[in-house]
């Protein structure tokens, strides 16, 4: 091969590799984007049924119940407008508390219950997850509109 051919080959390989990488990245990106919904949006049927999403709001006071086996747990997440039942198995984060902000990731089951595979709570007393704060703000706005 002449030097020119070699260089062209190198360039073509590099471009092909780059295109492959870009395709790989973008398709993985699209598949794994996790969208965020408030309880009101979920109950209005806006959330997807076949993929994972994030739900944010406040843990409703006096809604936390452990299952008989002590591992499963259910609670309500509210945006002060409407609330959605959530089920989770396992240990909740240290700062998970009734009446405080929470963000959960998971899917809807057939009975329109949100089954979380991950629960995130805020990390100190002054800090509210932005997503939970956003959900509460939207919830309050929608309550005002309803009235």
């Amino acid at each position, binding site marked *: 091969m002449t030097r020119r051919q*070699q260089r062209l080959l190198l360039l073509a390989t590099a471009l092909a590799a780059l295109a492959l990488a870009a395709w790989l*990245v973008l398709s*993985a990106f699209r598949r794994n984007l996790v969208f965020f919904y408030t309880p009101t949006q979920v109950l209005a049927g806006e959330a997807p049924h076949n993929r994972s999403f994030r739900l944010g709001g406040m843990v409703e006071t006096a809604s936390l119940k452990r299952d008989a086996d002590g591992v499963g747990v259910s609670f309500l997440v509210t945006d002060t407008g409407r609330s959605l039942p959530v089920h989770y198995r*396992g*240990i909740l984060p240290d700062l998970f508390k009734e009446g405080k902000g929470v963000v959960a990731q998971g899917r809807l089951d057939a009975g329109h219950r949100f089954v979380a595979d991950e629960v995130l709570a805020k990390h100190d007393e002054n800090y509210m997850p*932005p997503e939970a704060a956003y959900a509460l703000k939207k919830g309050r706005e929608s309550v005002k509109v309803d009235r």
Partner: protein
Amino acid sequence: MIPELGNFALMIALCLALVQGSLPLLGAWRDKPHWIALARPAAAGQVSFVVFAFGCLLAAFVNNDFSVAYVASNSNSMLPLHYRVAALWGGHEGSLLLWVLILSVWTAAVARFSRQLPPVFVARVLGVMAWISVGFLLFMLFTSNPFDRLLPAARDGRDLNPLLQDFGMIIHPPLLYMGYVGFSVAFAFAIAALLGGELNAAWARWSRPWTLVAWAFLTLGIFMGSFWAYYELGWGGWWFWDAVENASFMPWLVGTALIHSLAVTEKRGSFKNWTVLLAIVAFSLSLLGTFLVRSGVLTSVHAFATDPRRGLFILAFLAVVIGGSLALYAWRAPTVGMGERFALFSRESLLLLNNVLLLTAAATILLGTLYPLFLDALDLGKISVGAPYFETVFVPLLLPVLLLMAASPFVAWRRDAWRDVASRLSKIAQISVLFGLALWLGWKFTPAVAAGLMLAAWILLGCAQHVLERLSAVGEGVTLARHVTKQPLSYWGMLAAHAGVALFVVGVTLVKGGEVSEDASLRVGESVVSNGWRYSFTALQKVDGPNYVAARATFEVHGPDGRVLTLQPEKRYYTVQQMPMTEAAIDRGFTRDVYLSLGEPGKDGAWLVRMQNKPFMGWVWGGCLVIAAGGLLSASDRRYRSYVKRKEDETIHTAAERLRTVAGIAGRGPAA
């Protein structure tokens, strides 16, 4: 009084930084030796005042001066002394001061250890570093002054976040910042070389040790953060693809590309433009990382500060640094030339491929990290990009890097015959593949685990064969010991770092492929079997700590091999911040970690317990430490420390000679 002195010291440091950033650069441009000579004294002054200011803030923390707003919001009189010291960098303002302090440390190191370099060049380097310091000092003085007073003074402080009250807090931020800020030296060297138009092998050789040290520190910093998250967050995770972790990982990936590219520039004079660009990108990502973590834009475990007010300054600063250096690059780089040519199959080509892969990996992480922020900022909806994205993208991109890692050292510079290399490597390739197949078909490992271990074996065998080939190439009459010591330290460093990657891959593969986690609800006296291990809850007691109360559970854990471990996880309650915390109990072993954490208590005396078995977890940490050690070993190569004319420099360029003439240095003997 002391806080005011600290504040005043910061202002003086700013003035000195302005002097250090202006006159020496002008002097280098206008060829005025007196101005050039100002660089070192100005730097020394700036460094002293920054250190003094840091000392003042430290004094405020140690003396519990809660009339200082920053101390009041990050410390408490009940906090033990070592955490009061660490609390200094527990928040936004103090982190910035730590950043500037560490920049001072690097500045002092450059001033001290670069006496053999031409004064013009050193003046430019120190000048560029001064401007970075100016940016941070202005940011601190105008938007986030750690010395601001609180009127009236608080009676006691709000305490350090309990998550941060740990040994990790004492060393993780300084290590990480040593890495981030260390890239400012590589950056300053690159900018200085662009300004002077002297991009050559000598420049690359001067730059290499600094970059290696910074990179090794960054490795240690990331390792420490991950190690800390593993035991402190209490749930056994150690890498979350969290925006904050990504923020430190991106400069690491680009830094890795940079140290390889610098090697090519030094040895062969190629890739000059590319190396400079990488230095700029690595430092830009370090800046981005600093600000991402500390500006409060993230929803993440590290978002302790929330203040968008500073955003504007940060954006402007980033724009000036990145935009300015790229503009300079666009202006000066075309004059540099392409450097030495190389054939399609040569070590240069393979290193270029490694660079492209590492950079692509960094770019994909950047996309996943910043895209949600952009959407949020533009009010286009809230999304998050989770670990699955990063794992699907990152692993396939890194597989070829691992393949190349073992092979590249066997390929000659400039041009090599691909058949020769293949025949030298065929034996270890066969062994690795057979090993992988045996794991998969024989021992019934999953294909992913078998592939991971096969790659690790490939790298380790590659390292071993390279050493053997090198040592057997010895002539008669030379002892093996002498031959080992005759190899440059940078060679051993390279092998160590590559072997470290292999150990890391073993750890990640086995822990990802074989970890078992189970939750159960247990009362005292009960026990449960998980994955062949028997966990018995034998006792529960109340414990009083200095600033917390805790419930401590005692577990006896019976392993399948008959060994009995005693583990004591705790649930703590920190009284000042009224915050519960899980303190996991971990038994670390050579081939597995047993990880036990305590959830919340139930109504009838039952506790939720998470039992985890993590095979080969320790190898992940060991691998990281070996990688960092490899970097430090390379950096300590004597070759980098002398400014001696070398043959290669002459053949590639006579630039070193020219530099010397410009600098007015009388020719020192080559055998100095």
